[in-house]
């Protein structure tokens, strides 16, 4: 048993990586309506506080389940595998080398003949890698198991997310010029 709150259970969903986001959103809206403060206008302070807490919990759960990375990490936590990012510094050297190459390319994009083309190409490559990892995570989490391999992929996703953020920020900046 893990101490982690089961966010899936809050929506009456099975704890699986594959998720129907439309269905999730629908259930979220229904549940939020049920705890809406308006319904508690004449309720006691305690009841109002409780409905507020439930609303916050629903919101937090939605944020976790909507994001593939956080959803995957939550699933592993429910299965008893948790960790502190701070101490996870050793990763596949080839993966880190690739990160460095992408960072380098992104850093030099401004000086390139066509900065937007370079940035766009990096974004395409990183996004493709991200999709590949998410697909593999689905296979692992909903099938094969292998929690340690899944953990490694989740850590990789964190790097890719950061990289995509930076590339998009640069792209937005370049488009303004």
């Amino acid at each position, binding site marked *: 048993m893990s101490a982690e709150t089961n966010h899936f259970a809050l929506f009456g969903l099975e704890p699986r990586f594959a998720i129907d986001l439309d269905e999730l959103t629908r259930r979220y809206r229904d549940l939020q309506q049920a705890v809406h403060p308006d319904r508690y206008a004449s309720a006691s302070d305690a009841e109002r506080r409780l409905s507020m807490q439930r609303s916050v919990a629903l919101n937090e759960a939605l944020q976790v389940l909507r994001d593939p990375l956080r959803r995957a990490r939550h699933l592993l936590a429910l299965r008893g595998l948790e960790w502190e990012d*701070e101490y996870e*510094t050793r990763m596949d050297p080839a993966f880190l080398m690739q990160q460095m190459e992408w*960072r380098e390319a992104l*850093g030099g994009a401004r000086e390139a003949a066509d900065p937007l083309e370079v940035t766009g190409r990096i974004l395409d490559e990183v996004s493709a890698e991200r999709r590949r990892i998410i697909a593999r995570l689905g296979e692992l989490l909903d099938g094969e198991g292998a929690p340690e391999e899944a953990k490694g992929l989740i850590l990789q996703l964190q790097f890719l*997310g950061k990289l995509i953020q930076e590339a998009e920020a640069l792209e937005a900046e370049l488009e303004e010029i």
Partner: protein
Amino acid sequence: MAYSEKVLDHYENPRNVGSFDKDEPNVGTGMVGAPACGDVMKLQIKVNDQGVIEDARFKTYGCGSAIASSSLLTEWVKGKTLEEARQIKNTDIAEELELPPVKVHCSVLAEDAIKSAIDDLLAKQDKKS
């Protein structure tokens, strides 16, 4: 967030930026990353026949604290034996650079980088002998 003067100094004038050929027998390469912020750090050491670190290089993509931590470390390890270099603690780096608590993980990254570089070198030498 305000950086300390020491961090700014290393950030603006990083020491020993660059790389060695990782295939050289007397070069050890450490690659580490910080998943929380996406920082990537490569730290390389070159040892002489006596097993003393003669030179070091780094390449870091990350925040000022991560760059300063690796820059400082390359200065510190020069002239040290592998065993001495392994003794360097992240807390020493954090203290020297006056890193705030939220940036202490950058010094953890640097400590892990030098350890990984030493391990890489020892593995290489093991294979050779």
